[in-house]
């Protein structure tokens, strides 16, 4: 089990984070954007869990932190979806790039 | 005798007027105007009181007052006496003179404001606020307090110009605001650097600290930094004075603002620049100032000639006067650049004298505009027929302004050049051209208005009347008084002069 080096986990997390970020910044469909944000948060969780096991000085708090962040992420996405729905009600579209009424 | 709260009373007495005005019905024109003028009187009385008690031998130190105001940085700092900002007022001879000048001109301008046509209530409230600011500037004993009052003059001016001015008033108000905003921004930097590195903002203490070897400071101030600060000061007050090329805002103000406000502006506000340069520039950075002397003198000559030549081709009388202000402020710089007794005293004299003269001239402009509704030279002419008295006074004002002996203008001009000729004769000789040009453009303008064929529609106009007498007579009187008996001005200044020169080591 310990054959997998720490760096691998971190690299995975980083990649995941970047994918999420990329998605969040490029995808037109708001749902996908929200999911991409989820990806970013999960990348964080991976980091936390990794560190809590293989960190410089491991401790359980990392996993606690991960739990918290999962919960919070859930709430956040829930709210996001709710807002998306009310938006959808008004403009019959979930494309984020069409949401540009507010600008200079 | 003791003068507790004397200066505070002097500075803030217009506040009473503001409060009373607040409860005045908007429509009661005459009442508002009366009150407006009355509100300026207490400071005038107190100022004169101070002046005469000083001439009567009482010590100006008695006037100073001091309370703990702001303590930055907590008890620790307080115990070490750092970062305390006191509310401290006080005056030296120079300050006293300026305060008297301010009080006088303020009252006269308040009278001149009878010409204002609308919304007297707001006008006079702002006007009085402005007066508080000006009086405070000349009495503040520490930089931060000074800056506070300095800015207080800014806001009322913005409104007074922008609301009661002429056609392009808003533009004028803005350029006033922005230029002076920049100027005071630079000033603020200087003040804050001084304050936060030395730990004090008291002018006298700063003078001591900055000019004694390894005096206790919070953080060191290098020589080069001092020079930088002085240059910054020069810029900051250069905007106010104004020094070429920082002057264009002031032209607009002169043209667009109501004459009564220009009386104040050209009479006192511009002088704050000179006051600051002398008080802080010379006072706090004497050595560096000495290094800049030549630059100042050159700038002065440039101002003098630049203003004079441009005034020569203006088609609007206000513009002529505006440029003439620039030109005359050049003489202040010349005096400062000379950096000797004669020069500095000349500069101070010029500050006062130009204050009076331009106040007079702009009041007359107001009178003229009342009747003719124009200040364009081409449209005017032969006014001496319709209004001989006004024309006479206008001519007198012009004469005073071009430095006719027997009037204040000459004394200051003479001393400034006397000073400069000792230090840099050649430059002074060049500057002397300005004296000729002054005569040229002023006569051109004034004669174009008063002499020549009388325009038909101006023959019937009424001459100086009723309240208009007060400002004219008082100002002419003072101008002549200073011109004939300069001691009234020079005596109070000697003490200040000595301290300044001691700092310079001249």
């Amino acid at each position: 089990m310990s054959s997998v080096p720490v760096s691998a986990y971190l690299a995975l997390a980083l990649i995941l984070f970047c994918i999420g970020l990329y998605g969040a910044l490029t995808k037109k469909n708001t749902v996908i954007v929200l999911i991409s944000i989820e990806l970013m948060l999960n990348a964080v969780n991976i980091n936390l869990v990794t560190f809590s096991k293989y960190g410089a000085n491991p401790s359980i708090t990392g996993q606690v932190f991960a739990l918290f962040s999962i919960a919070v992420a859930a709430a956040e996405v829930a709210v996001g979806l709710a807002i998306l729905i009310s938006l959808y009600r008004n403009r019959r579209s979930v494309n984020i790039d069409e949401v540009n009424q507010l600008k200079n | 005798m003791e003068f507790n709260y004397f200066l505070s009373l002097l500075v803030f007495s217009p506040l009473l007027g503001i409060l009373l005005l607040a409860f005045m019905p908007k429509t009661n024109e005459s009442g508002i105007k009366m009150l407006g003028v009355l509100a300026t009187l207490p400071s005038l009385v107190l100022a004169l009181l101070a002046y005469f008690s000083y001439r009567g031998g009482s010590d100006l130190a008695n006037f100073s007052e001091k309370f703990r105001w702001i303590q930055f940085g907590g008890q620790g700092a307080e115990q070490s006496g750092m970062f305390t900002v006191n509310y401290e007022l006080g005056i030296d001879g120079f300050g006293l003179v300026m305060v008297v000048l301010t009080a006088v001109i303020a009252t006269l301008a308040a009278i001149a404001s009878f010409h204002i046509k609308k919304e007297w209530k707001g006008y006079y409230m702002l006007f009085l606020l402005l007066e508080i600011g000006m009086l405070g500037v000349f009495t503040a004993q520490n930089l931060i307090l000074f800056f506070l009052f300095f800015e207080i003059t800014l806001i009322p001016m913005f409104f007074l110009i922008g609301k009661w001015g002429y056609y392009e008033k808003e533009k004028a108000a803005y350029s006033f605001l922005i230029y002076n905003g920049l100027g005071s921004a630079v000033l603020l930097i200087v003040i804050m650097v001084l304050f936060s590195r030395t730990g004090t903002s008291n002018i006298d203490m700063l003078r001591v600290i900055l000019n004694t070897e390894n005096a206790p400071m919070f953080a060191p101030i290098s020589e080069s930094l001092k020079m930088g600060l002085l240059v910054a000061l020069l810029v900051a007050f250069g905007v106010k004075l104004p020094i070429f090329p920082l002057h264009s805002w002031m032209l607009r103000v002169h043209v667009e603002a109501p004459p009564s406000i220009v009386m104040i502006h050209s009479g006192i506000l511009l002088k704050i620049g000179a006051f600051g340069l002398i008080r802080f520039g010379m006072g706090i950075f004497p050595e560096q100032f000495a290094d800049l002397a030549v630059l100042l003198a050159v700038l002065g000559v440039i101002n003098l000639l630049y203003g004079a030549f441009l005034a020569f081709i203006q088609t609007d009388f206000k513009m002529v006067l505006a440029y003439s202000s620039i030109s005359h402020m050049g003489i202040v710089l010349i005096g400062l650049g000379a950096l000797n007794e004669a020069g500095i005293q000349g500069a101070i004299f010029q500050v006062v004298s130009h204050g009076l003269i331009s106040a007079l001239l702009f009041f007359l402009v107001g009178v003229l505009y009342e009747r003719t509704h124009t200040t364009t030279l081409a449209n005017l002419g032969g006014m001496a027929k319709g209004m001989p008295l006004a024309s006479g006074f206008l001519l007198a004002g012009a004469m005073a302004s071009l430095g006719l002996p027997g009037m204040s203008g000459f004394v200051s001009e003479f001393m400034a050049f006397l000073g400069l000729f000792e230090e840099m004769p050649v430059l002074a000789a060049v500057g002397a051209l300005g004296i000729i040009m002054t005569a040229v453009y002023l006569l051109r303008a004034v004669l174009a208005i008063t002499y020549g064929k009388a325009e038909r529609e101006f023959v019937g106009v009424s001459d100086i009347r009723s309240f208009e007498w007060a400002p004219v007579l008082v100002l002419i009187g003072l101008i002549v008084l200073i011109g004939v008996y300069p001691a009234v001005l020079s005596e109070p200044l000697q003490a200040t002069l000595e301290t300044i020169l001691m700092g310079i080591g001249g």
Partner: protein
Amino acid sequence: MENAWLIPLFPLVSFLFLLLFGKRLKEASAFVGILATLASLVYSILVLLERLESPTHKAEAVWLTIGNLELTAGFEVNQLNALMLVIVSLVSFLVHTYSKGYMHGDERFPVFYAYLGLFTFAMLGLVISPNLLQTYIFWELVGVGSFLLIGFYFYKESAKAAAKKAFIMTRIGDVGLLIGMILLFWQTGSFEYDEIFAAVEEGAISGTMITLTAILIFIGAVGKSGQFPLHTWLPDAMEGPTPVSALIHAATMVAAGVYLVASLFPLFNASETAMLTVAIIGAFTAIFAASIGLVQNDIKRVLAYSTVSQLGYMMLALGSAGYVAGVFHLMTHAFFKALLFLAAGSVIHAVHTQDIEKMGGLWKKLTFTGPLFLIGTLAISGVPLFSGFFSKDEILIAAWAHGNYGLFWLAVIAAFFTAFYMFRLFFMVFTGEARSEMKNVHESPSVMTLPMLVLAVLAVVAGYVNTPWFGAFLGDWLVEGNEALGHGHIAGPGWIMIVATAVSLLGILLAWMMYSKNSISRDWLSSRAPIAYGVVKNKYYIDEIYNQSVVFATKAISLFLRFIELFVVEGLVKLTTATVQALGKTGAKIQNGQVQTYGTIAFVGLAVLMVIYALTGGYL
């Protein structure tokens, strides 16, 4: 003599009084002025008499403290001052009287008297000043007085222009004076005449400095005394009422330049160059102005140019170390020129024109003015036994004795010209037939003629106070106790007097032949040398030249500066505001409403920071 300072105050009082109450007094204000000047006159005479035996009196008080410099003000009564006091107050008094008639009916009558008062005050103040600073102060004040009076008819464009010109031209000179005296101050540490002279004595000042200051001060004198090249204002100044021309532009103010040089004589005398300059300018002006005078047709302008030329004489005298001669001529000239102007005034008063081409044959009509005018003409022409003869003679001798032979001959020719044009004037006005019909020509009232009479008497006798025959009483008195001023009487070869007499008579003769007997046609010369004639007729185009050079240059500079104002000063402001605006615009563009852009920007920001961090290997 201790209260000599009162003398200027009488006119000042009248000035102020008339300013306040003139409107109510109407023409009665004349009496105020006359009384005031009379008081000054009486007092001045007393002072003069007192001065004849007692020494110079000087009193001063601190006027202005500058640190530890102290500038004083006060008064001094030395020979020159005392003499000038009398001359000024006398002429002023006479002119005041004369004006009562001349200005009768003018709506601004009181103002006129007020101005006269102001001027008289300034002039009297000028002549008792003990130091250069005070001199300068009154020097400027007389300028203002003259300015006001020239522009008295303010509604006339010409008067306006003339007034402006007079003020500015003299001011140009004044600046020279100012610079000169300030330089002198820093050399000697004082404005006091005596201290300056003392410093000059012990050679505390370098020679070049003396020359420089002297010449600068002389520039001032040039301006005031209408010497070349600053003379052009004086003829124009004739726009003022004629009594003014008599008082200011003949007798007193224009003589102030001479007075200044005289009272600084020791300074000038210490520098050869300065003296030579003065002499040359003087001589040149004398001949130059005289030549213009030959062809003018305006009665007052002729007199004006003759004034210029006579002042040139005085300068020549001073420049040739002829202190006495200069002052002497100053005095006599004051009398006969004032007389001539007043007489001219009475002529104009009678015929309501100044153009001599339109006059003629007035001798019979103006039975009183005519002879007086003739006396004046004889005096100025230097006909023997008249005052002008003696003083002019002194000058010529001085010039010769000082070795300025060239200048001497110039002066001689100028004398000839003078005689010629003066008599040309006389003949054209008084003899022959009227060249235009003139209604109700009448002799002036006695209030005008009496002052002329007084002056006429003086024009005759004033010369005898200082003659080669009966002793140079004036001269000796003037220089006594001050050898720096030279000798009371300079002995010169006898033939000079003969030459002088000859040329003046010759001039008269020629004038008589051309303008009275008409044995020589008038355009004898002008037809032969039309160009030269045109040049002279147009006053050598000096005014035009000034317009093309100085005035034009000033305008050009101004325009150039305006260009800078608009494009450099304003331009920079506009540039800055524009940049800020542009920044805002671009910034606003990025704000395109796309939420993902915002995220991207944030991420880019983060990335940039991290990249810098990585590149700099960590911590800046």
